[in-house]
């Protein structure tokens, strides 16, 4: 099957800034994919190249098999993009904007779908309001609606939930999930990593224009599945043998990081031998946020070497 998105050796330079340094990425049809990375990593730049808003200095990209430069019309028809910037056209109402957007994609008489979009995004009562008068979160919803108005098979959302309230965020994801179940490919960027963790089956992490991690969410989590243990001890002193495991010391508690659960037995045995009493013991699996920070940190060390 044709991949939904194919990015091959893409470089992007802005003058002396090398914003993308040879990105290779394939997203299969039907995937729910996250593109993560710190500010300035190049996520938006990559999306812009995919959407034809920007041209790669080198390399090529395809959407549903269509080259974004050579077959730009087909590529753009296949793609719906929610831009990161909150943009709107002050002259028009929500419904007018959606009708125009529909028309630009060659679809007249799209009102049934437009109404459905408005309903799903909680915009029905705002349909005839000028977009400039909407609140920030509402404007973002309109951007989402605009990206979906031509029912694209591939949907890219660049931080769609920034500034959106909790209720809509859930509604929005429910809606996007439904689109994914119906066969749409979804790619999103977000700085709320728990969103990516619960929604996405595969994740790419970008740092300084390079993909430094690319795997299924499950593998990423388990590969970095250090077990975290929080201990409150009596007397409040950690035996020296355990010092190497110490990650942090906070509020009279010791936070240890273990490779797996079997390490826990060793820790407890050591404490018993040293006659230290355990007052509090908390064990937790790391979440994506910690995995993310670890991977970013490692990449930093490697780069420094």
């Amino acid at each position, binding site marked *: 099957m044709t991949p939904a998105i194919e990015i091959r050796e893409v470089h992007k330079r802005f003058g002396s800034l090398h914003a993308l340094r040879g990105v290779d990425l394939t997203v299969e049809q039907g995937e729910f994919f996250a593109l993560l990375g710190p500010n300035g990593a190049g996520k938006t730049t990559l999306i812009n190249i995919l959407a034809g808003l920007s041209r790669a200095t080198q390399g090529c990209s395809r959407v549903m098999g269509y080259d974004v430069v050579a077959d730009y019309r087909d590529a753009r028809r296949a793609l719906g993009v929610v831009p990161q910037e909150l943009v709107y*056209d002050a*002259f028009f109402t929500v419904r007018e904007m959606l009708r125009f957007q529909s*028309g*630009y*994609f060659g*679809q007249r008489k799209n009102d049934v779908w437009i109404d459905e979009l408005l309903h799903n995004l909680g915009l029905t009562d705002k349909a005839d309001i000028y977009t400039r008068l909407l609140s920030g979160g509402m404007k973002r919803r309109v951007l989402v609606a605009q990206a979906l108005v031509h029912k694209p098979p591939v949907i890219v959302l660049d931080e769609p939930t920034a500034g959106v309230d909790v209720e809509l965020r859930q509604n929005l994801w429910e809606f996007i999930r439904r689109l994914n179940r119906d066969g749409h490919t979804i790619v999103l960027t977000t700085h709320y990593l728990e969103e990516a963790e619960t929604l996405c089956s595969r994740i790419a992490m970008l740092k300084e224009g390079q993909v430094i991690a690319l795997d299924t969410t499950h593998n990423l989590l388990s590969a970095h599945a250090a077990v975290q243990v929080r201990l409150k001890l009596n007397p409040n002193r950690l035996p020296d043998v355990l010092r190497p495991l110490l990650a942090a010391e906070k509020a009279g508690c010791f936070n240890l990081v273990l490779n797996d659960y079997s390490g826990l037995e060793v820790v407890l045995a050591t404490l018993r031998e040293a006659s230290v009493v355990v007052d509090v013991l908390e064990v937790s699996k790391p979440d994506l946020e910690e995995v993310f920070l670890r991977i970013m940190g490692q990449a930093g060390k490697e780069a420094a070497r």
Partner: protein
Amino acid sequence: MTGLWTLFYKELLRFWKVGLQTILSPLVTTLLYLLIFSHVLESHVQVYPGVGYTAFLVPGLVMMSMLQNAFANSSSSLIQSKMSGNVVFLLLPPLAYWEFFAAYVAAAIVRGLVVGVGVGLAGLWFTPVTLAHPLWMMAFALAGCAMLGAMGIITALWASGYDQMAAVQNFIIMPLTFLSGVFYSIHSLPPFWQALSHYNPFFYLIDGFRYGFFGVSDVSPELGLLIVGTCFLALSLATLALLKSGYKLRN
């Protein structure tokens, strides 16, 4: 073609919604020119035999307002989209660059004609105006609006901000229109300026447009239309090339 029509319609709706500023205000400004100049000069100047100064002035002002408004329409719409970032709504869809061009130019023509007709009708109230060759008149009106519509696109593509836009408007478009013979025939100019005027494409627009009214002109309308048509063609090709390359739109 749905894309082109939608963009054209959007552009019309845009200026229509702010008609006070885009139609009424240029109309009033132009009528003030008419009122003042015709009052001061009517009894002193006769450019063509048998044609009163006010009657001479009306077509000039009509053309001037058409040119300025056609330019203003495409340039201000595009620069606003660029500055506010909502130009992405036009860059994400599969609109061809020539559709983009055609829609903006067509909307500029409509705006130019609407204002032009308004000024013309108001002019009738000051003086009767004859129409010797309506087809020539239309041809030059269309050519003028289309030309300035294309110039508006180029300017808005090039400009990085409103100040650069205003600079082009004030230092290029305004002088070229004012010095093209709106208020006088170039025959009343010293020879140097008369010769220089022949390098101003706007001169041919106004001269040819007047021919449509009075059947008299400085240059033959065929030659005028040829020159103006060539200018429009060159500007169109330039605009299309810029749009195709993504100049300052798709960095």
